[in-house]
C-alpha cells in the first residue's frame, strides 16, 4: 500500500526534527460522532499528524449477499433499501434494472420516468444529509437543522408514494409497487419550487464561510490518477476532475432524454467534493422538473411479463389464470434465465453495481453488491496520511460514505 509519510509543510517537519516524538496509536470509532456510522480508523500519530491509517470495517456486516442467495428476487428488494439507507429509492431502482437485464425485460416509459424521478429525489435527500453531517463535522450545526427540515418534506412525499419514510421497497422486478398517487407530481414540483431558494441559503452558509473553507480547501486532495486507481466513483471521482457520470455516459432508464450538467472539481480536495454535491442537487431539481413536464402515460409495469410481475390484485381474486400466475410468482419467484449480468447505476454515493449470477429459477445463485462507499473508503489509508487528526474528520465528511452498503 502506498502509505509513505510526508510532512504537510516545512514548519511541521522542522518542529518534528527538533523534538523527537514517540508514535502514538489512536483508535477512532467504531462509535465516534464523525465516522458517520460504525467505521473504525486505527491510526498512528506523530504528534497530531497522521502517519498511518488503517480503516477497520465490518461492524455493520449483516450478510446481505448470503441472504440474497436464500430468497427470491422480489424478496430481496427490502434489503436493497438498507444498503445505502440515505437513498433507498435509488438502490431499489438499480437492483430492479440489474435483474431486469437478466430477464431481458424492458419496462414501459412511465415506469422508467417514475424511477428516474424517485432516484433524483433520493439523490437530493442523500446529499442533504451528507451536507448536514459534513456541516456538523466542521462545526456548523445550523446546516444540519436546515437540511433535515427539507428532508422531512421529502420523506412526506416518499411516504405518500410508498407508505414508508425511507425504507421504501418501491421497485419490483418488472415494475413498481404502485403507480404515483393523484396529484403527487404537482406536490413534487411545489417542493422543488420552495426547495431551490432554501438550498441556496444552506449552501450560502458554507460556501464562502471562512471556518468551513479553512477546514476543507486543500485538505485531502485526491489526484485524478489515484481516484481512478482506487475505483472511486460518484461525486468523489468527479470532485477530482474526472467527468464520469453513468447517467450521461451509460444512460439507463431513459436518462438520455433529460438535460443536465455534470459538475466536476479541479483540485480534488474536500471543498471541491462539497461543491460538486451542491451543484448536483440543483441538477437533480432540473431533471425532476423535466421528468414531470413530459411525464408519460401508459402502463407502469411490464404488462407482458407474466412470469415476472404480479397481476393486479382485483384480477387475482376473480380470475383463475391470474390466481395461478400470482401463486407461482409468490412461491417460486420471478423466473429468470441462467446467466450472468452486471449493472451499475449512478447512485448518490457513486456507482452501485449488482453482479447477478443465475442458474435459472427464482433465486439468484450469487448476488454481489458493488458498494460505492466500500471503494471510496479504500483510499483512506492514502489520503489521510500526512494530515492532522482534525483534517481526517473533514476528509471523512467529504467522502460521504454509508456503512450500510460498505459492509453489507
Amino acid at each position, binding site marked *: 500500500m502506498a502509505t509513505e509519510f510526508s510532512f504537510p509543510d516545512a514548519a511541521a517537519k522542522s518542529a518534528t526534527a527538533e523534538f523527537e516524538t514517540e508514535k502514538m496509536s489512536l483508535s477512532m470509532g467504531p462509535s465516534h460522532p464523525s465516522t458517520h456510522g460504525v467505521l473504525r480508523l486505527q491510526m498512528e500519530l506523530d504528534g497530531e499528524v497522521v502517519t498511518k491509517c488503517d480503516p477497520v470495517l465490518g461492524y455493520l*456486516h449483516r450478510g446481505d449477499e448470503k441472504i440474497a442467495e436464500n430468497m427470491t428476487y422480489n424478496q430481496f428488494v427490502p434489503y436493497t433499501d438498507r444498503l445505502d439507507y440515505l437513498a433507498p429509492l435509488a438502490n431499489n431502482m438499480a437492483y430492479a434494472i440489474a435483474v431486469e437485464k437478466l430477464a431481458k425485460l424492458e419496462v414501459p416509459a412511465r415506469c422508467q420516468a417514475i424511477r428516474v424521478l424517485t432516484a433524483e429525489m433520493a439523490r437530493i435527500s442523500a446529499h442533504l444529509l451528507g451536507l448536514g453531517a459534513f456541516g456538523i463535522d466542521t462545526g456548523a450545526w445550523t446546516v444540519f437543522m436546515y437540511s433535515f427540515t427539507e428532508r422531512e418534506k421529502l420523506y412526506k412525499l416518499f411516504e405518500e408514494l410508498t407508505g414508508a419514510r425511507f425504507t421504501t421497497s418501491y421497485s419490483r422486478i418488472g415494475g413498481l409497487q404502485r403507480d404515483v398517487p393523484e396529484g403527487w407530481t404537482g406536490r413534487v414540483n411545489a417542493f422543488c419550487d420552495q426547495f431551490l431558494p432554501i438550498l441556496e441559503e444552506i449552501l450560502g452558509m458554507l460556501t464562502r464561510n471562512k471556518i468551513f473553507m479553512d477546514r476543507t480547501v486543500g485538505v485531502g486532495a485526491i489526484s485524478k490518477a489515484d481516484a*481512478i486507481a482506487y475505483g472511486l466513483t460518484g461525486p468523489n471521482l468527479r470532485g477530482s476532475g474526472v467527468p464520469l457520470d453513468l447517467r450521461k455516459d451509460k444512460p439507463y432508464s431513459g436518462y438520455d432524454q433529460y438535460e443536465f450538467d455534470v459538475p466536476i472539481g479541479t483540485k480534488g480536495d474536500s471543498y471541491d467534493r462539497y461543491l460538486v454535491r451542491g451543484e448536483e442537487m440543483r441538477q437533480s431539481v432540473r431533471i425532476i422538473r423535466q421528468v414531470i413536464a413530459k411525464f408519460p402515460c401508459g402502463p407502469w409495469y411490464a404488462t407482458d411479463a407474466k412470469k415476472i410481475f404480479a397481476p393486479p390484485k382485483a384480477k387475482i381474486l376473480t380470475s383463475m389464470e391470474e390466481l395461478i400466475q400470482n401463486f407461482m410468482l409468490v412461491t417460486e*419467484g420471478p423466473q429468470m434465465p441462467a446467466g450472468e449480468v452486471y449493472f451499475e447505476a449512478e447512485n448518490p454515493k457513486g456507482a452501485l453495481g449488482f453482479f447477478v449470477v443465475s442458474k435459472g429459477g427464482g433465486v439468484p*445463485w450469487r448476488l454481489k453488491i458493488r458498494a460505492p462507499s466500500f471503494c471510496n473508503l*479504500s483510499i483512506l489509508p492514502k489520503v489521510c496520511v500526512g494530515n492532522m487528526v482534525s483534517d481526517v474528520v473533514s476528509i471523512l465528511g467529504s467522502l460521504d460514505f454509508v456503512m450500510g452498503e460498505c459492509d*453489507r
Partner: protein
Amino acid sequence: MPATVAVTTLLQEKFPQVTPRASLDLEAVNVPPADVIAVLKALRDDHGFDMLVDLTAIDWAEGVSPRFTVVYHVFSTTHHGYIRVAANCANDELPAMPTAVGLWAGANWHEREAYDMFGIKFDGHPDLRRILMWDEYPHFPLRKEFPLAGIETPLPDPDVVAETGAKAIAAPMMGGPFVAATGEINLTEAEPRAKDESWSEVREKPKA
C-alpha cells in the same frame, strides 16, 4: 456491439488461451489463472480499461470442479466500456489467485473481501487479512456449504464474553424466508420451504 467484440479478438491475438465466456450482457472472457494479471494489464494499458470496478468470486458448490471463479469487472473512464474477466481457481481445496494490487491499488480491499468470504488466497497481496468478519473468525461465510444461520463461534473479546456469556450462535430460522430451490422447476422438489427447517430458540434445530 462491434466495438466490444473487437476486444476479445484483439486479446486473443496476444493471448491465444483467452476464450469468450457466456454472458447475458457485457463482453466476457475466460482466462487461465496464470495469465490473469497479464491480461488485465494488457486491458488496462492497451485497451483503455483503466478502472477496476469490481472484483469478486463465485462458489459453484462443493464437489464441483473447478469450484471457485474469480470475476473482475473492468471499466474504461474514456470509452465507457465494460469487460468481465473470469478465472477459475486451479485448486478446489486451497483456492488461490495472483493479486491485482500491483495494477490497481483499489484491488486491495476487494481481494481481502474475497478472501474473507470465500477463503481465496491472493498470492502476493501485501496485507491479506479478513476485512468484514473479525480476524479470528474460522469460517468462510459465502461458501455454499456454510449455512445462512451461521455456526456457533466464540466472540473475539474475552472480557466481554466473560461478562455476558455471549457467543455467535446460529440464528433461529423459524418462519422463513421461504424459498424455492434454484434451477428448473420441479414441483415436488422446488416446493418453497424455509431453508434451515422450522426451528426456534425454544425448539432445537433438528439434526440433519
